[in-house]
């Protein structure tokens, strides 16, 4: 299979660095260039990767490299529509970050332009390429716990806002400034916007769609950010499965300018745990464990050192396969739309103080 000539755009997303190894190692890819208009992002990239040309704008990069076939949009959420339109106009396939847009008109526009251009647009939900999740899917599909009755999940992390400031800006993260609710000084765009994975995973595992959602925000752990950092979500799927989801930034962080050793205060900086109850049993899963543990430098604090984190290999493989064979990615814009709608319903529920029906 001919390697796909790929580029990355903007380089300000928290997942940017996770692509470096895969883009360098995967023989199905030929990493051509990156664009990094932000000086800090450019500096970070140039320190991390050698030999890949770095341009100051997306257009400059695409003009200089008409051979580019696909891009990873590693940008803030409010830049996605413009970049999707740019890529679509040039017939370039897109690997989108996990939130294409929270604005459903923008979202529909993305569907329209990508479908009209006949390009692949895959959404990055890397949990689908995690071996533990594979096992969970296989066990549940085999009926190991019987008929599903409830689904609980955490997707809890530290907050990236001090390393990736756009995530702390409601206009850039959520796309606009909307108060969480009357009398609350916080705005949409925080922890919920960072954690779509479990909203997607429950749809995959139950094979059903959201019916009712009730969400509540708790007092912020970080008093100096504008967005929510602690919330809880409960509700019911259309097939009756009830759920409880925790998409919080409930792990405090040291406020480093870039992720690195010593970022975490709590030992585990990121956790996705699942509990599924059925009429014949229960299943518990830790999607990122077990690991190796230490109390070494820089803070001599008990810390998890993750031992496997290779979701980007499978994710990029699927993207390449779809480009070359014309298949539709499992996480495409149309599939993912209902996940985004559910996340918006969480904000609506918080705003109203009532459950919301979908």
């Amino acid at each position, binding site marked *: 299979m001919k390697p796909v000539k790929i580029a990355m755009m903007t380089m300000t997303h928290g997942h940017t660095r996770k692509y470096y190894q895969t883009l360098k190692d995967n023989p199905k890819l030929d990493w051509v260039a990156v664009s990094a208009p932000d000086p800090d992002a450019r500096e970070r990239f140039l320190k991390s990767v050698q030999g890949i040309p770095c341009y100051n704008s997306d257009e400059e990069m695409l003009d200089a490299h008409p051979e580019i076939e696909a891009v990873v949009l590693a940008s803030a959420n409010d830049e996605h529509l413009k970049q999707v339109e740019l890529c679509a106009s040039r017939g370039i396939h897109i690997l989108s970050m996990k939130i294409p847009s929270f604005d459903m008109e923008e979202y529909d526009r993305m569907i329209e332009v990508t479908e009209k251009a006949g390009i692949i647009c895959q959404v990055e939900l890397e949990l689908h390429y995690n071996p533990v999740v594979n096992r969970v899917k296989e066990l549940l599909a085999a009926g190991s716990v019987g008929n599903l009755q409830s689904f609980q999940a955490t997707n809890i992390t530290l907050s990236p806002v001090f390393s990736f400031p756009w995530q702390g800006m409601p206009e850039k993260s959520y796309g606009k400034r909307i108060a969480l609710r009357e009398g609350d000084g916080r705005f949409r765009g925080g922890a919920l916007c960072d954690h779509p994975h479990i909203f997607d995973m429950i749809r*995959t595992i139950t094979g059903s769609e959201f019916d009712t959602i009730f969400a509540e925000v708790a007092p912020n752990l970080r008093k100096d950010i504008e967005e929510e950092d602690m919330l809880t979500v409960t509700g019911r799927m259309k097939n009756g499965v009830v759920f409880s989801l925790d998409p919080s930034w409930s792990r405090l962080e040291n406020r480093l300018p870039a992720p690195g050793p010593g970022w975490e205060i709590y030992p585990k900086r990121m956790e996705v745990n699942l509990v599924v109850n059925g009429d014949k049993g229960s299943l518990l899963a830790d999607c990122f464990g077990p690991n190796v543990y230490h109390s070494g430098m820089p803070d001599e604090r008990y810390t998890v050192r993750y031992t496997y984190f290779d979701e980007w290999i499978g994710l990029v493989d699927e993207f390449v396969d779809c480009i070359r064979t014309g298949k539709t990615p499992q996480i495409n814009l149309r599939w993912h739309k209902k996940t985004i709608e559910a996340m918006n319903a969480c904000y609506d529920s918080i705003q109203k103080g009532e459950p919301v029906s979908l």
Partner: protein
Amino acid sequence: MKTIHKISTPLEGLQYLAGRYDVAVPADAKIQKDGLFSTLTAGGKTIALLPWRSERKFVELKNLTIDGTLKDISVLRSCHIDYDGTDMKKLLCRELDLAEWIFDAKLEYIFTMKNGKAANTVARLRNGIVCTLETAATLAPEAQTLDKHEIIASKGVALDKVVDTQIQQNSVYLYTDQPEPDAFTDTDFELYGLNAEDVALVRCALEALKDPAAAEKMNAQAARLEQLAELALRSAETGRKLIVED
């Protein structure tokens, strides 16, 4: 739900990975697990594999000793309990190699006490790190092997077990109609279907196929490890501390 691609055997895993990464697999390729060392036979050559070096928990423990996380390392304490009937030499080869490989240093001496299915070894590396290696072969078939490796330094402790636990944690626990849950740990998306040990075996075999020089080094180290394990058993027989000669 989509059908999940699943690997059934180490050889199938090797062929799959080799195909993905453009590595040629000779037609006679064969992986065997029944000797003192697991081996890869390919292109008429047999290579003794050191698969634990490809286990991600050991890769990360080694990284912690290199990247400045641990400073001024004093001790390695390991405990490995394997299946009843496993050759003690095989257990010693693994633990002795891990000690040398993690700290990139040769052993200076070995002292072993053995009784029945169990042996305890004290060994010192030439960089001064002291290793306590506790080994036993007592487990029933199908039991989960017990494995603990703890590195103690003046700045930091690192280990492959969670604090306050004695046995291996797993990624997935399935509770059905039995009092004890079924447990699963899957560590590699590309090689999904293989357990962690077989994943490491395949990764190691791929490395040997890709890099003939690395394969030669593995063969040389395997021969050395056999001698080291024999030295440990001789120490146990004689009750003497034995110096490792080059």
